[in-house]
């Protein structure tokens, strides 16, 4: 509960409309951003603990307990930047559905490589596609990223209040992206 306090405090301050509409001094806007960032980082401790609890529950009958997994929420996805997918050849994408009914969702992950494959836990290939990140995004001031494309795939039927994970491998196999047509 202590780990939630920073976010609680930030959200308490954020109740005022000045916090989000630009009708505050710039230094105040920047201070809100700082407070929110600290709050979100501290909340990561809770989400990590909660997810690892979920993963462990799924392995109760196994003789080998599930290893602790470090989950990164990639807060710079809004500028198509993510440290995990850029630095790791292989990575796991975990999608949690906070709704009380199943939903499907298209996932977009910024990547630096040319070919990737996506698998679900049942070793089934998930259809994916690489799309170049527009130059205007690559040139956003303050974007420090090696990602030049986004890997897109569909997470189908995420269970209510549950999760699905996908294993992404950078591979040498020709991807669907190379089969995509590009016309100008």
């Amino acid at each position: 509960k202590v780990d939630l306090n920073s976010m609680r405090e930030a959200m308490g301050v954020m109740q005022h409309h000045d916090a989000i509409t630009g009708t505050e001094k710039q230094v105040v806007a920047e201070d809100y951003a700082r407070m929110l960032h600290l709050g979100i980082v501290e909340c990561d401790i809770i989400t990590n603990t909660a997810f690892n609890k979920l993963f462990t529950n799924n392995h109760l009958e196994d003789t080998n307990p599930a290893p602790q997994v470090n989950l990164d929420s990639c807060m710079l996805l809004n500028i198509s930047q993510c440290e995990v997918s850029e630095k790791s050849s292989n990575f796991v994408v975990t999608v949690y559905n906070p709704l009380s009914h199943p939903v499907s969702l298209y996932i977009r992950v910024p990547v630096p490589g040319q070919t990737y494959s996506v698998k679900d836990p049942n070793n089934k290939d998930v259809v994916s596609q690489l799309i170049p990140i527009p130059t205007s995004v690559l040139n956003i001031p303050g974007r420090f990223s090696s990602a030049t494309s986004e890997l897109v795939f569909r997470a189908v039927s995420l269970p209510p209040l549950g999760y699905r994970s996908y294993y992404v491998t950078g591979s040498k196999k020709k991807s669907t992206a190379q089969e995509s047509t590009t016309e100008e």
Partner: protein
Amino acid sequence: GELITLQNNGNKVQLTVSTGEVQLFLDDKKDLPLHQNFYYYTGFTGDNRQFFNRSSGAYIFRPKQKTPITIAPKPVSEVYKGPVVEEIHQVFSDWMSQVIRVYKEENHVELEWLVGPIPVEDNEGKEVISKFSIELETNGTFYTDSNGRELLERKRNFRSTWEVNISEPVSANYYPVTSRILIRDTTKNVEVAVLTDRAQGGSSLGDGEIELMLHRRLIHDDAFGVEEALNETAFGKGLVARGKHYVIGGTIPPVGASPSLAALERDLAQRKLLSPWTFLSPADDFTFKQWA
């Protein structure tokens, strides 16, 4: 005259290669194209000595023009097609671009806009909008939501509880859009809704039109208390804003039909505004087999 067509469940997006013009057909059975482009209003500059002479600023939207200025009539476009998604990448200027996305299994069209840094070297503050237009008779009426709950009817140049004399026809018709804005033509039986990923200002200043404010950069304070112009910078340059609009629409089904447009809009709003959380974990230390 060559056309490139992107298509998903009930929607069609057509790009005319020679002109760069894009048309959205939200109901592929009806020949009713929806046009979209980006414009900007220049902010009024006043001396702030009295109310009618206040500058456009953080608190008030007070454009100089009644008709916004087009950023670029003909964007440069690139098309990407694949098994999951089809996209048109449009560049309108060095500070305005957009990606139009048609996901194969979805029933809406996604428009991801990117604005900034808005140039102000000409000493003009600018307020950038995205405007949608379609040939519909909407009788000056449009709908915006109230904190993501019920839709409220808005009538152009009208207030329900007093006789209003509108002297600023653009800003006086702007309303908060928390998650969606829509127009309806009850004769043609067609509805068009635009869902936002954040609270924005929006209006319908002409029949069959929807406009949404995306980003503002102003160089004068409006004297309502901030004492700073709305001129934010990061890394020494004006801010860049990136966001999404989801366009959904088509024929309004008869009462009782399932799924109705309203139901589709609500489902889309839930999926986008309460979107699943995505987490990434490095997996270089274990194989797929170990993970599975």
